[in-house]
């Protein structure tokens, strides 16, 4: 005989029958059933297999403490992995599949693994698969391990909503304690939120006859009503899964099956934990057989779901007082033997399900064995918040001791089991009062343990940790509780030790001659229950996780056929047109060298530095002397870290005596602006200096190439562009049709370049006009890929690509300020450190390959010798130059500046080739084109 559904009783709706399948067999349940209760009601005993030995597993718990009933659930064409059977409500049409079992939980081909348990103890894998190399075995072992399957085609709609909320008092748990506390606080005028993870309030009260002289159900309804009337909020099916800094409590609210749960970040003024307690298992031989379950769970299955777990029941108690359950089981039709467990030998027997127990040599037949090792207060959240525990001898449990700021535990969570004590405690705590009267505790004997007894005694049901493994752990000196956990995986199953921790601690204490409090507990960490990862990220995924900055001209770029890619946080044209991107970049680079290219350079930094102290500040921030820069001019420079390492490069334009524009790298604007702001406020007078990032106030289009001036002239700008009055490295501001216009002559390509900046509202007109004019002379838009080639031909670096975390300006050929600049600047001391003076520093060089050779691989090493290679440097940029019709490369190479002309070996993935060190600039080294 096994479990069965009673014709009456429970809180299920017998009017609504739901069909489902499990491992291919059809069953039915009722609305209100969980997967676990529905399977039990259908007489299913084996619901899954354990993780390691593939032992048959039955339902142990009726709620969050069940480690065994885990299913992959298919519904509506989607598969949801690892659904906890005891907390997932049944939905019509669900197809359940046991995890870690094939073809079914009942007949699992790997069940034979259990025969080898003698050789598969704790640490077995690490000890056995050492030779010759663990990595040879790892893939096979990984394939065998793991629970559930992640099927392709997960529902795209499976998204978690997230919200933020706050309250004065958060009460967690809607049993007697929680309801009484929430009502008292609401009626005293507090803003209260009460959460409970069940669909209805009342906890286990429905099992007891009456509360404070009224029927329990009426009492619960009265409290709920009073809370609602007093303005309290009640959230059902909501689990508090973690407490984080500053009393942030993570709440997760279940929605319909198939919808991701909702995350609520609740900021509470005070928190009352009324989370109750869990029945813990007893350790005896074969205590893992299906049909053995927690006493509390059997009571719950009977009372809540109308399921009687057996007709011939044995109860094994370790001290917990009788509270009516025997009568309830008897009334339901069971034959009950209520046994107190002593020091004697105890084992269960049966093969795929329990058939009875042997106690002190007496065989007692049973089709269900209900176990109560005493109740453990649920102190997870208390510990998340930093609360301390103390060991209570009387109830043999850890109970809350020193409270975290703003927290209190009430009722069973505090070790208070008497109903009247609970209500008094709850009402006092709700009003922030202390509780003077010591609550009566629930007696329990210390967890019993039979070492040396034949038969395996299970401690962690899901992960197959037995007493023998704890013994081995103690013997091998993994006696600390944190070591025990990691060595044996005790408590690392998906229930995170809710059933196994106490038994494990007790075993280790006994084996090492210590007390349980001396052994201590492992750290409790969120989440209290397993959560789908979607709960945490919510809508923070894809573009919402990392929003890109967009160009004002994005639509125009798209219309021109741009391939938009991310470059340093911006969505920018990489190239235009279809076909091979490399070919497009080559064509664009060639076009820019022959005629003119138009580049959208809007992301280039435009940070304004203003005020009477601006000049001194700029001189301090930059490696290069900026004090001598005349208004209307532009200067190239480096910003360093205090270590002397290049942090950013770019040009500075001086717009007036007290106004500069820092044009830092496009991808670096946020970092540079923060760095400037920090120096402004730390060590400067912030009333004499102002920093403002105006990057996104402008659209900048750059004309570059021999025909740049022709196109610029065609734009009819109100400016004289002739080189005599507007030379290279100059900037002009003017007004065009009532709008500001800024024109700069600065080149990142080596060709004449004219940067024109307008307000984004004028950008489309400028772009269209430029494109028309460029087309007439054989030019057009170019993307970032082409620009990268053009700048590399000139040996111009990109910080972070051609430099690394050690590169200093003198490694790049900019040594003068280091030797001559007299005033203080950021990085000055770092530039004279021992490391900075090292003669073997890696310096920027160019690399040329022999005629006909392929281009080098970016990231390849430059090695001392091909046989026993030692890296002397790295290839940082490598392109085929369409202008020179040969590959070019930039590299950082030890002592590079004195090695021009040397032949070096380039090594990449076991292949080596030769290259010649040369100057970084491969094209127009005299700079004639710039002034053409």
């Amino acid at each position, binding site marked *: 005989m096994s479990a069965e559904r009673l014709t009456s009783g429970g809180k299920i709706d017998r009017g609504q029958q739901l069909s489902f399948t499990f491992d291919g067999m059809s069953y039915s349940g009722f609305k209100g059933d969980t997967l676990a209760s529905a399977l039990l009601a259908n007489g299913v005993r084996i619901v899954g297999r354990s993780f390691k030995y593939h032992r048959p597993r039955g339902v142990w718990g009726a709620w969050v403490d069940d480690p065994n009933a885990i299913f992959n659930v298919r519904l509506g064409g989607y598969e949801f992995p690892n659904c906890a059977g005891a907390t997932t409500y049944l939905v019509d049409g669900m197809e359940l599949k046991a995890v870690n079992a094939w073809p079914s939980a009942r007949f699992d081909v790997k069940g034979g693994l259990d025969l080898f348990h003698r050789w598969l103890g704790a640490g077995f894998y690490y000890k056995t698969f050492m030779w010759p190399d663990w990595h040879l075995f790892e893939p096979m072992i990984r394939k065998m391990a793991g629970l559930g399957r992640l099927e392709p085609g997960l529902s795209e709609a499976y998204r978690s909503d997230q919200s933020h909320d706050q309250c004065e008092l958060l009460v967690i748990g809607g049993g007697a304690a929680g309801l009484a506390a929430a009502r008292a606080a609401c009626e005293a005028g507090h803003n209260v939120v009460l959460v409970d993870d069940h669909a209805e309030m009342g906890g286990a009260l429905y099992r007891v006859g009456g509360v404070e002289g009224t029927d329990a159900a009426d009492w619960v309804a009265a409290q709920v009503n009073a809370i609602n009337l007093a303005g309290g909020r009640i959230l059902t099916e909501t689990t508090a899964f973690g407490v984080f800094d500053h009393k942030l409590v993570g709440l997760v609210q279940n929605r319909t099956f198939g919808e991701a749960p909702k995350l609520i970040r609740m900021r509470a003024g005070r928190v009352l934990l009324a989370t109750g307690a869990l029945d813990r298992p007893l350790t005896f031989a074969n205590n893992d057989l299906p049909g053995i379950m927690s006493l509390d769970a059997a009571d719950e299955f009977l009372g809540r779901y109308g399921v009687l777990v057996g007709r011939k029941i044995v109860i094994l108690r370790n001290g917990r007082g009788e509270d009516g359950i025997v009568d309830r089981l008897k009334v339901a039709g069971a034959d009950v033997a209520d046994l107190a467990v002593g020091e004697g030998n105890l084992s269960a027997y049966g093969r795929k399900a329990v058939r009875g127990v042997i106690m002190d040599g007496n065989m007692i037949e049973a089709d269900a064995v209900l176990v109560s090792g005493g109740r453990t207060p649920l102190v997870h959240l208390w510990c998340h918040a930093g609360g301390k525990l103390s060991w209570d001898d009387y109830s043999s449990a850890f109970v809350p001791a020193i409270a975290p*700021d703003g927290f209190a535990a009430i009722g069973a969570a505090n070790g208070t089991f008497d109903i009247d004590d609970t209500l008094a405690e709850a009402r006092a705590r709700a009003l922030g009062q202390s509780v003077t009267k010591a609550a009566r505790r629930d007696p329990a004997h210390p967890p019993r343990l039979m070492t040396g007894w034949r038969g395996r005694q299970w401690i962690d049901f899901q992960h197959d940790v037995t007493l023998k493994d704890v013994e081995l752990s103690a013997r091998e000196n993994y006696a600390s509780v944190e070591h025990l956990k990691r060595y044996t995986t005790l408590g690392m199953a998906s229930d995170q030790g809710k059933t196994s921790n106490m038994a494990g601690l007790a075993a280790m204490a006994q084996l090492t001659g210590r007390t349980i409090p001396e052994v201590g507990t492992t750290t409790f960490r969120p989440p209290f229950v397993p959560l789908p990862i979607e709960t945490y990220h919510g809508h923070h995924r894809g573009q919402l996780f990392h929003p890109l900055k967009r160009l004002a001209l994005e639509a125009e770029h798209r219309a021109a056929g741009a391939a938009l890619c991310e470059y340093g946080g911006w969505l920018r044209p990489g190239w235009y047109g279809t076909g091979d991107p490399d070919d497009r970049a080559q064509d664009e680079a060639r076009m820019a060298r022959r005629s003119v290219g138009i580049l959208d350079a809007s992301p280039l930094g435009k940070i304004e530095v203003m005020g009477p102290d601006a000049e001194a500040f700029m001189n301090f921030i930059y490696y290069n002397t900026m004090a001598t820069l005349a208004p209307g001019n532009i200067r190239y420079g480096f910003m360093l870290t205090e270590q002397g390492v290049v942090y950013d490069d770019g040009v500075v334009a001086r717009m007036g005596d007290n106004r500069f524009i820092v044009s830092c790298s496009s991808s670096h604007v946020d970092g540079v602006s923060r760095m400037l*702001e920090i120096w402004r*406020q*730390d060590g400067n007078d912030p009333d004499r200096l102002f920093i403002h990032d105006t990057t996104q106030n402008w659209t900048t289009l750059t004309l570059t190439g021999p025909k740049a001036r022709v196109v610029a002239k065609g734009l009819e700008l109100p400016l004289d562009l002739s080189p005599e009055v507007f030379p290279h490295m100059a900037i002009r501001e003017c007004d065009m049709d009532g709008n500001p216009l800024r024109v700069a002559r600065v080149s990142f390509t080596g060709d004449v370049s004219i940067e024109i900046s307008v307000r984004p509202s004028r950008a489309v007109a400028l772009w269209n006009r430029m494109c028309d004019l460029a087309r007439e002379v054989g030019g057009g838009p170019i993307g970032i890929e082409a620009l990268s080639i053009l700048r590399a031909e000139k040996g111009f670096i990109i910080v972070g690509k051609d430099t690394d975390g050690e590169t200093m300006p003198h490694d790049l050929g900019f040594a003068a300020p280091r030797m001559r600049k007299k005033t203080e600047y950021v990085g000055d001391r770092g530039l004279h450190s021992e490391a900075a003076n090292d003669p073997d520093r890696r310096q920027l060089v160019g690399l040329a390959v022999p005629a006909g050779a392929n281009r080098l691989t970016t990231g390849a090493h430059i090695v001392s010798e091909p046989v026993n290679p030692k890296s002397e440097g790295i290839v940082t940029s490598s392109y085929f130059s369409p202008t020179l019709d040969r590959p070019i490369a930039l590299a950082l190479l030890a002592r590079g500046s004195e090695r021009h002309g040397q032949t070096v070996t380039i090594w990449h993935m076991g292949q080596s080739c030769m290259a010649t060190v040369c100057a970084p600039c491969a094209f127009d080294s005299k700079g004639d084109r710039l002034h053409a």
Partner: protein
Amino acid sequence: MQIFTCPFCGERNETEFHFVGEAGKVRPATSGEISESEWARYLYAQRNDLGSTREIWIHLPCQELFLMERDSMTMGVRGTRKLRKENG
């Protein structure tokens, strides 16, 4: 998630803030001689106190630096105040 109080904007989530440095660190005058060890101490040595700490933070939306006293053990914030001197 911690809550910090920006002296200019009020209470905000910690994600709006960035740590700048421990308070009281003064950049040595680099125009004079500074030994390697003195410079290394300025750059790398942190008090990293367990318990009461004084730190400089920046509130990113308003870009203002401020001083925060907090407890690195309990994560409690003891107070924040403006870095800049009040007028008068």
